[in-house]
């Protein structure tokens, strides 16, 4: 299993991390954008290379400073990590070209270079969380990504962006603090911070109350970060008032990375113990996931602001992912993991499309969107694809993940659960249909019937994601295989 140090693993994190201060030094909006774009594409290239390495060798390793694990910090990438890295880097690579025009319109000119600095730091933090094999190092990257996220959200045009960012700051800090308390308790008992090392020591100490407390802190802390119902209260406002680019980037990546951390804790750190036997985690997670699927979807139905509607829909979709994890079978896990990818595609497309509508017309409420399908047919067609995916219509990515989840539930003879998954999709039909109806079946307001222009630099990223959604919806083999490999790896160990 021991492989030689793979420098690409380190460069994946360090390149965006060092590009951020370069943006500060450049200070010009276009210079910062160029650096950010070049770096995000380089990172995407590295992520593909790493995925191939991991698929071939099973994992990739890097030892920081030449120190061997568990003493030094070790970067480890397994198939799950490689998959998440691909999601984050891929979304980053399409976000940057899209960002140029949207940011020029939404962010004050003298702050644009700081915007890209923060976006790069956020990218670096999210990638760092995914590649690190060290519990404390993960906390550091968690803070890098969170702090930059707070700043990014606060840059929204609406003044309420500030309170949204502050609220997320409070909730996010509580989440991160809970995580670090959990890590501290584990360290107190085991004397190690390395995930692989923790895994081997855990069976001997699982009965101690300290470890159970650690598990509780970790679960609650991470659930706050991934906005698991009912710890989601920070998310709707944060997504609604953040700049369009930030909303799309975060919706597609940030919560997925938090889900990754949850997976890492449950299936790597506590991988060798029967965690569900010593701790009633499974019923709790299933209940929360179901509550998210239904209550968040219901909330989405009542929203007038489309960004807020999509934010509630995100909470519901996180419910599906967590449900797959809570089933704790290979099929369930792979359903949850593949939904991370599929949801990133669909939500990315949806928020990109809405961002383009905001760019062209400034409209974001359902009332203002009347007849928008006729004025912006190309953009809204992408939204339709994303919307159908959220419902789970066949030939969209959403169908593949829901099919996998239903299959997993049926394997466990959980008929009611399978029925509930399908039932909750009906709620998605309602909230997505509300947008379709307003956009296509109503006449545009008379004052605004000229076609609205969206620059090509925004249309191409929108349709890149929409195209990817169509492709991976029609042909789920690649993503499902990858998710299966990742799930097998998680269940079988590192």
């Amino acid at each position, binding site marked *: 299993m021991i492989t030689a140090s793979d420098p690409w693993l380190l460069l994946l994190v*360090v390149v965006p991390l*060092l590009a951020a*201060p*370069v943006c500060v*030094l450049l200070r010009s909006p276009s210079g910062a954008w160029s650096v950010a774009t070049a770096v995000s594409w380089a990172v995407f290239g590295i992520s593909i290379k790493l995925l191939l390495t991991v698929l071939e060798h099973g994992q990739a390793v890097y030892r920081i*400073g*030449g120190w061997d694990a568990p003493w030094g910090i070790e970067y480890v990438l397994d198939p799950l990590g490689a998959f998440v890295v691909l999601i984050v880097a891929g979304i980053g690579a399409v976000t940057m070209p899209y960002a140029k025009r949207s940011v020029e319109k939404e962010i*004050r000119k*003298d*702050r644009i270079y700081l915007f890209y600095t923060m976006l790069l730091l956020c990218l670096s933090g999210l990638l760092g969380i995914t590649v690190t094999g060290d519990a404390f190092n993960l906390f550091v990257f968690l803070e890098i990504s969170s702090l930059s996220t707070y700043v990014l959200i606060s840059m929204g045009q609406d003044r309420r962006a500030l309170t949204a960012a502050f609220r997320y700051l409070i909730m996010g800090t509580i989440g991160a603090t809970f995580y670090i308390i959990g890590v501290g308790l584990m360290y107190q008992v085991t004397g190690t911070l390395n995930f692989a090392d923790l895994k081997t020591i855990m069976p001997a100490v699982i009965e101690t109350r300290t470890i159970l407390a650690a598990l509780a802190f970790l679960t609650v802390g991470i659930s706050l970060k991934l906005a698991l119902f009912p710890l989601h209260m920070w998310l709707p406002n944060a997504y609604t008032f953040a700049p369009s680019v930030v909303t799309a980037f975060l919706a597609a990546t940030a919560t997925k990375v938090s889900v990754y951390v949850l997976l890492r804790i449950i299936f790597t750190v506590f991988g060798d113990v029967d965690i569900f036997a010593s701790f009633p985690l499974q019923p709790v997670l299933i209940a929360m996931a179901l509550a998210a699927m239904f209550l968040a979807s219901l909330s989405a139905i009542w929203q007038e602001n489309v960004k807020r509607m999509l934010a509630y829909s995100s909470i519901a979709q996180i419910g599906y992912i967590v449900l797959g994890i809570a089933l704790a079978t290979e099929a369930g896990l792979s359903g949850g993991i593949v939904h991370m990818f599929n949801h990133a595609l669909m939500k990315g497309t949806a928020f990109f499309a809405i961002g383009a509508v905001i760019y062209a017309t400034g409209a974001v409420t359902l009332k203002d969107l009347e007849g928008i399908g006729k004025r912006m047919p190309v953009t809204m067609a992408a939204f339709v694809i994303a919307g159908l995916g959220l419902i789970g219509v066949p030939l969209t990515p959403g169908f593949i993940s829901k099919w996998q989840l239903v299959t997993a539930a049926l394997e466990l003879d959980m008929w009611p659960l399978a029925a509930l998954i399908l039932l909750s999709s009906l709620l998605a039909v309602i909230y997505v249909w509300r947008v379709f109806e307003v956009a296509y079946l109503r006449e545009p307001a008379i004052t605004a019937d000229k076609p609205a222009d969206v620059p090509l630099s925004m249309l191409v990223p929108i349709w890149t994601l929409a195209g990817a959604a169509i492709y991976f919806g029609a042909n789920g083999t690649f993503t499902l295989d990858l998710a299966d490999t990742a799930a097998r790896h998680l269940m079988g160990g590192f």
Partner: protein
Amino acid sequence: MMVEKVLLRVIAKLLIPLIMLFALYVQFHGDFGPGGGFQAGVIFAVAFILYALIFGIRVARKSIPSSVTRTLLALGVLIYGGTGILTMLLGGEFLDYNVLGSTPLAGQHLGILLVEFGVGMTVAGAMITIFYTFAGHANGDLPFRIGDDR
């Protein structure tokens, strides 16, 4: 500002160079004694903050404009990361200081000095920037603008 407080001004002028000197001591003695980049950076920034408190924020901004503090801030991170990249180019792993010198000991020594220097720069820059941001905000005469050089 406090033009009439002679005592404060004289003592501050006496203290500020000493504070800076002590910061440099903490910075470069950090590998043998208590201290290091973070503490040194804070102490160094304190010299400027004291100056700003006594002589006013406008004068302080003239002596060290926010464009300089921002550059310090970014450069420090680059020095830290650059040291890591350098060790990689020299054939080691990221931040493996052994390869920096002729012997591993010399390499470790040089490496930690470089990295801590970067930390000191960034922390000093960050402390002054934070102070300027809040002070400028409360002053009222300077509208709060992050991108400004005033």
